């Protein structure tokens, strides 16, 4: 986590190196949520500027940077999609995840596994998870759209995420 320490000291080159490493992760998820390259670029800019302004928001002792940036980017993209003020303080976001996502090779392997796992899920479970994750829809909104009971939607979203977790559990 030398890069994070350098950013804390105000090192722009460290920030550039970090951008080169993780901008793809941040941009991809924002683009998937917003479906618009311009808006995804805005999220990319916002997420990295937040880190630049407040590097101590990321606590290296509580997780790795790549998954943290990915979750912040997803949440900011949803806030933008739903045209609402940011709901969570980035300093409150702690991400605990099994695979080490720092290296590009590991991330590529992980990406393929996620896609495989999503593809193998029952269609209704995947749909509920994706509507909630990529569209920021609440269980009641999904229930209205699909006509399924609220409780079923809640269960499917949770089951979907847990299926993903289990696929990575060693």
């Amino acid at each position, binding site marked *: 986590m030398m890069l994070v320490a350098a950013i*804390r*000291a*105000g090192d*722009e080159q460290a*920030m*550039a190196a970090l*951008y*080169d490493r993780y*901008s*793809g*992760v941040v941009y*991809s*998820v924002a*683009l*998937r949520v917003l479906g618009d*390259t311009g808006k*995804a*670029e805005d999220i*990319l*800019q916002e997420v990295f*500027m937040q880190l*630049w*302004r407040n590097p101590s928001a990321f606590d290296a002792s509580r*997780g790795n940077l*790549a*998954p943290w940036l*990915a*979750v912040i980017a*997803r949440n900011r993209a*949803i*806030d933008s999609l739903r045209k609402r003020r940011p*709901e*969570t303080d980035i300093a409150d976001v*702690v*991400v*605990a*995840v099994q*695979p080490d*996502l720092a290296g590009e090779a590991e*991330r590529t392997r*992980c*990406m393929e596994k*996620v896609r495989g796992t*999503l593809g193998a899920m029952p269609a209704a479970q995947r749909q509920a*998870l994706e509507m*909630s*994750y990529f569209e*920021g*829809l*609440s*269980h009641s909104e999904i229930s209205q759209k699909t006509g399924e009971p609220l409780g079923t939607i*809640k*269960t499917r*979203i*949770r089951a979907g*995420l*847990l299926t*993903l*977790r289990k696929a*990575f559990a060693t």
Partner: protein
Amino acid sequence: MNGHEQYAEDLTLYALSVLQGEERTALERHLEGCAACRRELDQLRGDMALMAIGTAGAKPPARSRVRLMEAMAREPRRVAAPRSKPWWALAPTLAAAILAVMAVFFWRESLDLEHRIAALQSQSARQLAELQRAREIVTTLTASDAMRVTLVAAKTPPQPQGKAIYVRDRSSLIFLASNLPPVPAQKAYELWLIPTSGTPIPAGVFKPDAHGSATLINPPLPAGVEAKAFAITVEPEGGSTAPTMPIVMMGAGE
């Protein structure tokens, strides 16, 4: 989930930032007191990170990088505040100082016996003064009304540290410093007592040893001055009557 299954589904929706209203308020209240659910929340965010990684593949255009670099250049470089060590980090130094005082005390004590045999009353008197001074030092170090002030560097690494312990009523000051960079030739550090009103008062000139450590014990000070802060500047070896800018270290009373 350790028996918290009733919260599990709401926790998932909360992690996804789609839980609203009363359900959200109730869950946030529960989270404050439930470490198991907070851990599960971290795990759920981990699952969310996996979902995000699953979207990977798109590359941002080169202009995004330029835009970020320009935005960073426009904003002042932020420097993290030096993380000040707790005062007890200086405990080994304090312990060493106390041991040194005690060593002097015992040494003087044995001398004192010899001098009694020789009936050297004057030596004994000096002895008592030394002992009194040592006792004052220990009393100051341990006084409940001692003002404890941590001074940290104006610039970050390598984190010089200074600890001033000051008892106003007795004008007693002990100052311990560590990790100080060496001073240039013919220069020395000078400690300043910054009173609540009036100009800074010289509180001793010192040079750090090879390890960057320094100690000042009871430098001459005017009686009963109320201090709001202590500061260190670099001065000529003989010391100055007014500080020469810049202040290299400073700390206000806790």
